[in-house]
């Protein structure tokens, strides 16, 4: 299988690393920034190109898009029209219309579309799901969770700080937990969100905080917070209290090794990692490669990724309006 990774940002590098560990995968990098391209290409000892048209014309099986969110639609559609299967980083797109468009173009061209909802491949989250489904804590009642704490990310051209490009923290970060919660516990009915964001471009003191409360169709309550704020490192946790018990994923029980880097050396988006033979990123990419090889749907359906996007966009809207928003629209209380 031949894979082209598009974009050598934080996620692009993570994906390159994964493909190199996988058997029978030939991986190439496509990156517009010449200096970055040469540096990464040397570091990973792989071929690279700065020309996406060249990638589209070549015989790649999969195009893996690790670009800022606002570019997902354009690059996915071009790849699909060139007959390539597409794996695209989360969030799938900036809005639902773009997301459905991506899916329909992929369908029309008979190619698969996979979305990087990687949290589903984290063993601790999978274990929580499995233990919950074994009935160990009865029926879920209230869920508390958090993701973030690694400071404000400094992406290419500061795209995280541009709401038109990223749709803010909630869409980029909390989409993971929203997807996981909907996967395991059920669809979200209504949301309320508060957002605090300091002005300006990313820098030492820029921050963004989201605090959300929401309720699922089955009544389960959730408090999910996220921050791009320096909380001493990126982390996430989740706690589910039910009728017969409580299950918790806690950072202090998830990190067997810690390494701290001096922030003066320049921070990019921190990627949470707990040493494993195969990282969750490798598992998600292996799943997609296998889906292509066996002509089966990917583990995470695009419709589910879009459903998670919808909820986070409603949170974004709720934070702007200051009111509870029904995910399906209309009155549902």
């Amino acid at each position, binding site marked *: 299988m031949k894979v082209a990774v598009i974009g050598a940002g934080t996620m692009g590098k993570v994906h390159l690393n994964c493909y190199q560990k996988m058997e029978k995968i030939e991986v190439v990098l496509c990156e517009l920034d010449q200096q970055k391209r040469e540096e990464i290409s040397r570091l990973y000892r792989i071929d690279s190109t700065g020309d996406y048209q060249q990638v589209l014309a070549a015989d790649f099986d999969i195009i893996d898009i690790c670009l800022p969110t606002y570019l997902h639609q354009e690059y996915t559609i071009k790849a699909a029209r060139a007959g390539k299967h597409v794996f695209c980083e989360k969030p799938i797109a900036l809005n639902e219309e773009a997301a459905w468009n991506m899916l329909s173009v992929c369908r029309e061209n008979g190619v698969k579309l996979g979305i990087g909802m990687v949290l589903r491949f984290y063993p601790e989250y999978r274990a929580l799901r499995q233990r919950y489904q074994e009935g160990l*804590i009865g*029926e879920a*009642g*209230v869920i*508390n969770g958090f993701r973030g704490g690694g400071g404000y990310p400094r992406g290419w051209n500061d795209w995280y700080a541009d709401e038109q490009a990223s749709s803010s923290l909630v869409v980029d970060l909390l989409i993971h937990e929203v997807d996981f919660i909907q996967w395991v516990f059920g669809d979200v009915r*209504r949301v*309320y969100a*508060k957002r*605090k964001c*300091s002005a300006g471009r990313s820098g030492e*003191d820029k*921050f963004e*905080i989201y*605090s959300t*409360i*929401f*309720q699922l169709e089955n*009544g*389960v*309550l*959730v*408090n999910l*917070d996220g*921050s791009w*704020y320096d*909380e001493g490192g990126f982390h996430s946790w989740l706690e589910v*209290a*039910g*009728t*017969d*018990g*409580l299950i918790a994923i806690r950072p202090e029980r998830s990190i067997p090794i810690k390494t701290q880097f001096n922030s003066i050396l320049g921070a990019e988006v921190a990627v949470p990692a707990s040493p494993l033979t195969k990282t969750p990123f490798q598992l998600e990419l292996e799943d997609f490669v296998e889906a292509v090889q066996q002509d089966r749907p990917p583990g995470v359906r695009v419709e589910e990724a879009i459903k998670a996007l919808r909820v986070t966009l409603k949170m974004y809207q709720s934070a702007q309006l*200051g*009111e*509870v*928003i*029904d995910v399906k629209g209309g*009155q549902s*209380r």
Partner: protein
Amino acid sequence: MKIGIVSFAHPHAYSYLNKLINNQRVDWLGFFDDDQARAKEVAAKYQINSYASIKELMEQKLDGVIVASENAKHREQVCLLAPYRLSILCEKPLATNCADGLAMIKACQEHGSTLGICYPVRYLSSIREMKNKIKEGVIGRIEHITASNHGSYPGGWFAQPDLSGGGALIDHTVHVCDIVYWMTGARPTKVIAMANTMRAGLKVEDLALLNVEWNQGFDLTLDSSWSRNEHYPIWGDVKFKIYGNLGMIEVDSMNQVIEIYSNKKDKPLWSYWGDDMDQGLIDSFVDSIEKGVPFPVPAEDGLVSLKVVDMAYHFLRSEDNRAIEY
């Protein structure tokens, strides 16, 4: 000093009694309880005088009295006590709604009694340290607070709405909101709440999430659920995560424990060794009586946090996705 207790309905009453016994300056204790069986038990176990009515208890010429009855009885009992011109300390919440709370405050003012409220969380050193740091401005302007006051299911009258006024929401929201008010002086302006009942057959909510906006530009997200089950290693928590524009403070006030894994217990234990907040509260009550000053946490403070409860239940009853802004 002579101290009375009105009702052992609230389990905190037993703790307050023990703290009163510990306090050297208290030399007389008596009580009234409208539950005769419970009154007999308490009198026998603690060897203190039981009286058949509030009037009989008041004939003993007390210096102070603690009301620890069911929430819905606070108003009537405090109003009965008010004419005796003494220091009254009422268990939280002050009442089941602000109107009742206000009536209690007015009755005490009219008769020259003082009315204080039991907010023991104010007596924890970690909470005091958090308040001092906020006052010093070390994290700058507060932007957002996420807090929790998770607890276990208390059962009994706590689940009877006519006696409790509500479930986990009224039981726990007031603690956290009081700390926010005490720490900042801010007042609540808008409340969004989501509640649910997870335990089968329960008539009150045992799960509640709130977002409260305050008039200093920050908001508070709060989980006040009775979400701790019987096998959880500790009763619950009181946690704060405060984001400022310059830094953040995280407080897990019950995180002063030793872990115990014993073959003699059916669950692991987090055994708490931090400040005894109830002792702090009771000693402060006794001090205030000795000095002839009102209890440092006036009932008016109890009204601020009860206002959040009123607003939350109003929002839950309304069929609107928008909250009234005060």
